[in-house]
């Protein structure tokens, strides 16, 4: 199986799609030297992210081994993780 998504660091809980991916299929995800399969719950456009494990509401979303934001709702493994369910923790003047 050729990898069609990539995990940037071992600690990550999201992977990035390297091409447009369709729902309900198993995709190869490159995680370092390993290749894992994740079943996608929905369509993931090229460059967008999906959860590789369930991310609970209020917990950190991790990419590059670093916190890139927090989940605003539970995100199931294989679901699209983007602006609709992940919020930034920085530059939030709206929360002052």
């Amino acid at each position, binding site marked *: 199986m050729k990898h069609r998504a990539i995990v940037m660091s071992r600690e990550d809980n999201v992977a990035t799609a390297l091409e447009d991916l369709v729902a309900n299929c198993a995709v190869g995800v490159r995680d370092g030297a390993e290749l894992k399969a994740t079943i996608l719950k929905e369509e993931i456009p090229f460059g967008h992210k999906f959860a590789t494990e369930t991310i609970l509401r209020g917990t950190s979303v991790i990419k590059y081994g670093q916190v890139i934001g927090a989940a605003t709702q539970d995100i199931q493994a294989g679901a699209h993780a983007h602006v609709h369910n992940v919020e930034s923790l920085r*530059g*939030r003047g709206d929360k002052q």
Partner: protein
Amino acid sequence: MKLMGYRRSNGKVGVRNHVLILSSIVCANHVADHIFRQVAGTVSVTHQHGCAQVGSDFEQTFRTLVGFAAHPNVYGTVVVGLGCEQMEAERVAEAARQAGHENIEVVIIQQEGGTLKAIAKGAQIARELVGRASQVSREEINFEDIIFSTECGGSDACSGISGNPALGYCSDKIVDQGGTVILAETTELIGAEHLLAERSVDDTVRQRVFQVINRMEQSILDMGVDLRGAQPSPGNMQGGITTIEEKSLGCVHKGGHRALQEIIDYAHQPTKKGLVWMDTPGHDIEQLTGMVAGGSQIVVFTTGRGTPTGSPIAPVIKVATNTFTYKNMRDNMDLNAGTIVTGDETIEEVGERLFVEVCDVISGKLTQSEILGHHEFGINRIGPTC
């Protein structure tokens, strides 16, 4: 690989040999543009500033204009002023001469007696400068003479996977060969500052990392708005970037892995070799202008969504982060890093290709932005127009 450039009398080194027509004030833009159109071999810089500015805002605009007038990529400059403006053309010219730059001339519209006479005077001067510039030859130079700038714009999720890591590889090579590398766009380092703090050369620089980030973030908090929408932009989000932290963690790769030597203000010259952070906004053109005004002779600009921009006086090498954009905007792109995404090349392989391209462009190979005449220029304003 042998590098060829122009050694100036003040010890600086240029990689281009432009004759610059620089307006000191918005009111002189039309005259400056006409001189540029009349005399082949010139470039012009026009802008909306130069009057009704105070304090540090005036100083920043002044420093930027002087940085262009006295730039080592410029053989000679004609500063065009109106005559009654705050940004006096003669003062800009004098500061450029103080920086050791020869061939600085001034045309003042009110002194010449109007538009037509000022164009004629400026064109005569520019004609002579272009003739003399054409007789200067390149000599061997090395990376110790180079201030190399990094930039990313129109980023997508691939920027942090392909383009920026490859650029980081190239940045490390330039630092290792004695060069200076500028990392900038402070807004796009929010969320990645701890990584730069860890790499800071001493405690002073480390503290400054947090000060600079806090000042930028506080200005957003004070406005009571969510940064998202501006950072990441709608295009970034379409490209898959979700938060500023994610964008920053992709951006920071551009600067490679070497120690951070200092943080300098907008349009200031680096005082150290190695990796330097210039405190600029994320706005592509304001950032580009600030780095070039700080004496940078060459820029590498990675882009995911695709951007055509260039500088009037410095070559800007465009690196597409994905193959779609490389093909879609082929006339604007110099290099494709999308092969990393598809697994056809490694970061190191693209980084090596980019390094060779940088060497070639330093020695005279034209970039797509130069060939297509992209001359974007924008000064970062930090005060009110009075």
